């Protein structure tokens, strides 16, 4: 674990606990940023690093769970909840919505650091996946319109002849497009292209069976 390439966002209204957590993380070589409320967190400029959000459920402006729901659509760091009550419904709900852990005060440093590390690891992985997808999308955008037409047909498993007929073009032309797609999408094989298409959530429009009709 290196201090520089990760960060922990702490959101707690209790100043004493906030400082104590910051101190503890700093003592363990983890960089942290402290926020007093959910509003402060949302409005702040956050570095683009693998991170973890340490979130108290009872906050002065909005509930921690509500904040979780609010930022769910965005790319946000994995959340570790901390609470004084630790009631079951809240923890269940938090976990359901993707919280990494739900810690009840007081908690040990081991539990805290483990949760944080897990969260950061998860974030790192998420970030890697997100980077790969971004690359694939970029490649996909470089395809010509005809190539974009060709791609779903190819990954659907249609024969060249079928696909060419589908598009109303010659088989030869289709093959040229297919080679170009493979090349542009950096797919080593058809299987690889299928996997990529799956990642890009390109719908499979025609099955071979359908084409048989």
């Amino acid at each position: 674990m290196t201090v520089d390439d990760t960060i922990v966002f702490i959101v707690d209204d209790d100043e004493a606990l906030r400082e104590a957590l910051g101190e503890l993380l700093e003592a363990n070589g983890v960089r942290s940023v402290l926020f007093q409320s959910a509003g402060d967190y949302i409005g702040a400029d956050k570095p683009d690093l693998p991170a973890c959000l340490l979130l108290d459920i009872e906050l002065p402006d909005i509930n921690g769970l509500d904040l979780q729901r609010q930022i769910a659509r965005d790319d946000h760091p994995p959340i570790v909840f901390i609470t004084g009550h630790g009631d079951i419904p809240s923890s269940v709900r938090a976990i359901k919505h993707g919280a990494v852990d739900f810690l009840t005060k007081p908690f040990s440093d081991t539990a805290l650091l483990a949760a944080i590390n897990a969260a950061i690891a998860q974030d790192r992985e998420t970030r890697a996946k997100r980077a790969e997808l971004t690359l694939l999308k970029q490649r996909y955008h470089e395809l010509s319109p005809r190539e974009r037409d060709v791609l779903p047909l190819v990954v659907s498993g249609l024969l060249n002849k079928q696909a060419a007929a589908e598009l109303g073009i010659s088989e030869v032309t289709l093959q040229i497009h297919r080679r170009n797609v493979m090349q542009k999408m950096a797919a080593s094989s058809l299987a690889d292209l299928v996997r990529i298409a799956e990642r890009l959530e390109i719908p499979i429009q025609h099955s071979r069976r359908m084409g048989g009709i």
Partner: protein
Amino acid sequence: MIAALHRTPPAMIFVMLALGLAACWSAGTPIGILAPLGALFLYARGYWLLSLWGGLLVALAGAVLAAMLYPGAIRDASRSLAALATVAGCIGLLLAPYPLRRSSRLAAMGRQAAGQPDGLAGDMDSVPEGAVHPDDRPAIAHAAAYAFWTGVPQVTSYRLREPDGSYRWTELRAEPGYGVSVDVDAMVSRPDDRWTVAESLGETVQAVQAAKVIESLHGKAWAFDAIGKFTYVTPAAQIAIDMALEDLNRRLGEREFIDGGEVGWMRGVHPDDVDGAAATLRHCLKTGEPWNIEYRMLRATGHYVWHRISARPTRDGEGRITGWFGTSIDIDVYKKTEAALREREKHLEQLIDTVPAMIWSMSAEGRPIYLNRRIMEVTGATLDTVKASDGSLSLKKMIHPNFWELAEKTFARSVATGAPYDIKYLQHRAGGTYRWTQTRAEPLCDEAGKIIRWYGVSVDIHDLITTQTELNLRKQELTRLIDLVPSFLWRLTPTGAPNFFNRRFIDFLGIDDGDLEQSRTERYAAALKVAIHPDDASRVWAEIKDCLSSGRPYAMRYRLRRHDGVYRWMDGRAEPLLDDDGGIIQWYGLSHDIDDQLRVEEALRESEQSLRQLVETLPALIYCAAPNGEPIYRSEKLGEFLGFGLGDKDAEGRTRLTGTLEAIIHPDDLPDVKERYGHSLATGAPYAMKHRLRRADGEYRWVETRTAAMKNAEGEIVQWNGICFEIEDQVRAQEALTLTQERLARAAQAASLAELSASIAHEVNQPLAAVVANSHACQRWLTSDPPNLERAQKTIERIIRDANSAADVVGRVRALFRQTDQARNLCPLDAILHEARDLMMEEAVRRRMRIEVEVEAGLPSLELDRIQIQQVLVNLIRNGLEAMEPARRGVLRVRTLRAGEFVRTEVRDTGAGIGAPDKVFEPFFSTKSHGMGMGLAISRTIIESHGGRLWAEDNQPSGATFIFTLPAEAKADHDR
């Protein structure tokens, strides 16, 4: 014959003329002219006679001259004419004496017989010619002729034959146009030895004889000789003047009288007259002319008395004066009468000139002939200015042009008809102005009724006219006033008979002016009698009768029928006019139509009545105060509440306001009330205050008083109107509520144990978590290589701080739990319900929501912890209100009813409802942003500890219902 002719002179002349002309014509000579000439001589007198004579002489002379100068026929004619004239002259001489007799006949017929009533002679013409003694005829004829020709009055005496043949002496006084005959024969002479006759009468025998004749007339007769020496004086005369003959003739100087000397008789003549008398006598003595004179003679009594003296000479055959005889007549009375008459005439003239009236006269034809001095002075007119060029009356310069026509018409008519006239016009004044003048004129008629003259008088009536005009104007004004004044004025006699109604009253009653059969009073009385409303009549007449007899002023209200049959209310008043003795002369009255006023008053009264009823029935205490705060009105309720009247607390040295306030306000509130009420009175600001008010029974009750100023159009405060509510119950309820709230607050702390424990855990966990975290951090700093002691030290300080904070929390919690538990009591649930409702009412109103509570009647009391159940109710109600919050409106219904062995209470809201009716009771379940999710959990714990149940149901279409049951039968539950 002559006497008969005398009576018809014109006929005589005409007859003579006719005879003469006939004679001339038949004889061919002018001799016939003699007849008319003779007739003319018979009747001509005075200057006419002279002219006749003159004419005759001129004709004679002319004829003689012509006869001498011309020969022939002319001479013959002239000769005959001269003869004719001579014959005519002879006839004239024959007839000439008659004029005296004519004049005597025309004289007044008065008698002057020196006190003797009988023996009236009448005039000479009325007695036979032969009645006068033959010896006296020449003397009478002479005296008459003399008087006629000279105009000097003559006195002659003659003897008049009585019917028995005897003669009586009569004295005739002849004046021109005037003659008196007096019978003096009866006067008796009284011989006296002292009075003597001259020894030698000498040549005066005849005179003396004459004098004696006179003496026998009992007159003062005398005779003297040719040189004026008295030879005889009647004894009576001597006595009267107290002078004997020798006294009269005594020479007082050297010279004889005739030579200008003074003699004795002259002493008896008034000094003013003596010279004239002597001179004339001397003249007469020298010339022989009769001596006629009037002078004052000294009587023996010492008085000067006027006498008329007449003396005539007696002559011998050669015409030489032989002596004189004379008489003196006492004419003092006559003289003085004449003087008095003159005086009176003068006085009259002065009177006419000075009397303050303008007097004038004019002839029968209307020509002005006289203007008195005053008319000339006042009008500046003279006879010339009022005369037209032809001498007739011209008023153009006298009167105002506006009246010319009228004046001329009136004047012309009067002159024509002889009717007196009376006219008023503006007459010119010397100053150039015009003034009102009244002129009256009446004619003076003779016996035959012929107008002789018009006499007129003009009186200045300008001031009168002006005053009258002014009076008329004033009267008109007064009449108009009386008729126009919008009231009915009337007048009664002392007996009560109406004798005057003004025009309005007459019109109102519709009295017909045309009905003249009855007198005005009767008509008025009849009209009035039927006009008074039958219901009022007896009352009115009784009152009038009473007033008439007692004389006290009359005032009544009654109905009077108008001419159209409508009865109108009247306010009648009358007062008597008294004379100096206090007797009633008239009653003057006024009736005013107050019908409209009464209606308005009635409406006002009704309106006021209804307002008053409104005020009195309002469930509030109402009062009014003057602008200075003095109480002026109190509603009955307030009066009853306070138990005393408006003025009952008045006392010396303080205002009614102060007195009232001190009496009714609780002593503790009094300063505050005074200050704030005073402030309102000073500034006009509305006043509102809650204080204690003393009730009549002495108990102080809480009231809320509000007072506001009533202002007029100008914004000035007219009155303060106030209202006072009794809020005793409200205040008491508020107090109870406050108590409950306090208790509840305490109870709430105690009751929410479970919730508190969770809260405490949170409170304690927070610092505890910090302590743990800091401890780990510290451990980490200490175990690092090299150990970071500085940071370790810092974390340890934080650990101490947070640990202390945790200890504080524990301390607070301990303090919280000191509340003692309360035992369960038997309580009515509805009371608790209402308390809870009241507690939450304020919050509901703030949220604009309503709480409806429905409690089934006859619910049993339950054994329960009042505070805990109240807590549950409050909790449920608050939850319901909060659930309805988004709608900002709604009704929360709380219903309690019996359900078998339980009493069931439902709290129903119209909010969004609840997704999981069971989950809400789990601890830490909350749909609210702030809630901890403990309320329902605790509530359920409480209810269950009471042996009941609490659950929730969703409503259709919206909202939720929380229901709890409590066992109806009290069960011992020691499970607390």
